[in-house]
């Protein structure tokens, strides 16, 4: 850019020297001796340059650059702190999430264990109740059978006795003969024994 600038400048200066300079020759003839040139300057320029430059450095250094530098540094620190804070917050959140997930997993395992245990317990209880009921009903059936057998035996015995008495009295009437008490007793016993044999052979 600067190089091209310089080339263009050189071209313009050449044109100027060829075309414009002759027209100015008359003007230059008047006061060329005392006019300024490109390097006009003196100690005053050094003084003013130093004064203005140092004043700018001094005043701006205090009232502009210090605030701006402080603001830049503060902002840098703020951004740095914010990023660090965000990073640590994220790490903490991730750790917490991991912990919660772990806890949730534990709770789930525990819950299923509890359900399993409950199911097992219920099974045991069910089986016990079933067994108890079965044994009780068996016992009831057995007792009923025993009672039935007893009642039957009693009824049979009473039937024998009644049958014998009837038979004896019928027989006595038939033979028209009064049997004495001892003879009556003997006949009944014989009849019962015979009936008992009849029953056992008939069973």
């Amino acid at each position, binding site marked *: 850019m600067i190089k091209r600038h310089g080339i263009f400048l050189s071209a313009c200066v050449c044109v100027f020297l060829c075309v414009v300079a002759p027209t100015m020759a008359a003007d230059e003839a008047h006061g060329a001796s005392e006019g300024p040139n490109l390097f006009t300057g003196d100690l005053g320029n050094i003084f003013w340059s130093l004064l203005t430059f140092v004043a700018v*450095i001094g005043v701006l250094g205090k009232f502009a650059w210090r605030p701006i530098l402080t603001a830049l540094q503060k902002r840098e620190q703020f951004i740095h702190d914010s990023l660090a804070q965000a990073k640590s917050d994220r790490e903490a959140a991730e750790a917490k999430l991991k912990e919660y997930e772990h806890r949730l997993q534990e709770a789930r395992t525990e819950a299923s264990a509890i359900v399993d245990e409950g199911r097992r317990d219920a099974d045991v209880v069910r089986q016990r109740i079933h067994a108890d009921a079965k044994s009780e009903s068996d016992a009831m059936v057995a007792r009923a059978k025993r009672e039935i057998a007893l009642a039957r035996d009693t009824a049979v015995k009473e039937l024998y006795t009644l049958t014998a008495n009837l038979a004896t009295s019928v027989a006595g009437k038939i033979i028209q003969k009064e049997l004495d008490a001892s003879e009556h007793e003997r006949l009944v016993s014989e009849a019962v024994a015979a009936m008992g044999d009849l029953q056992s052979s008939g069973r």
Partner: protein
Amino acid sequence: MTHILAASNPLDHVYQWIYLKSGEGMFGFTIVSNHTIMQIIAALLLILLMPRFVRLRSTGDTVGDLTPRGFGNFVESICSYLRTEVAKPILGEYTDRFIPFVWSAFFYVLAVNLLGLLPLEPVTRGLTRSVFPDAHHGIGGSATGNIWVTSTLAVVTMGMIVVNGLRIGGMHFIAHFCPGPLWLAPLLVPVEVIGLVAKIFALAVRLFANMVAGHVLLAVLASFIAVMYHAYGWLGGTGVGIVVVVVSVAFNLLELFVAFLQAFIFTFLTALFIGQAIVFHHDGHEEGAH
């Protein structure tokens, strides 16, 4: 108008016009000239406006307090750029110590450059003559197009280099002037000293030449109108005038860019030279000095 254009030297725009001077020649003392007035205006503008621009509002919350507003955004973005992109890589830990000087150099040169672009001279000619009847030229022009001004700025930079080189760089800075075996010192030390002076000289001449070049270029372009008018009459003057105005607008925009660019280059080289004097990396070049 055409007479003035034809008669004036294109370099008139870049000369220093002294209105009041005590003594003669280069050892005299210029009390008032167009350039000194421009420098004072630039310094006053900076001193009065800059603290207002950079003032941050206090809103009470941390984020609002750290947010610039208005023109402060512009100033701060430049400052921030110069600090992080230019100064920090060069000056490292010393950045915040020297950054006020770097910023001052940038904005001072920039303000003087930009004021030089304002066409103040025709406007202020009458006013100047009313105060200084002998004045040939009004206030205006680029003070950075004055080699005395740029040299002074460059010498201040050299002062910063030498003083801080000795204070912070210490023996490293002194040893830097003899980067070879000791018996070569009589040869190397003058070369290194000349090198330092050349850097400073280049700094001054670069700014001076660039500012002069742009202004001369614009003046030469404008003078073509008068030349063509004299040679071919109104038609020639108008025809060339249209071209010259278009090209002048483009070159004024280029000058605007150059004003920023040269301020940046001056600042960048200032930071670089200070950095070279105070920040030493232990490379082969340095070890050779011991």
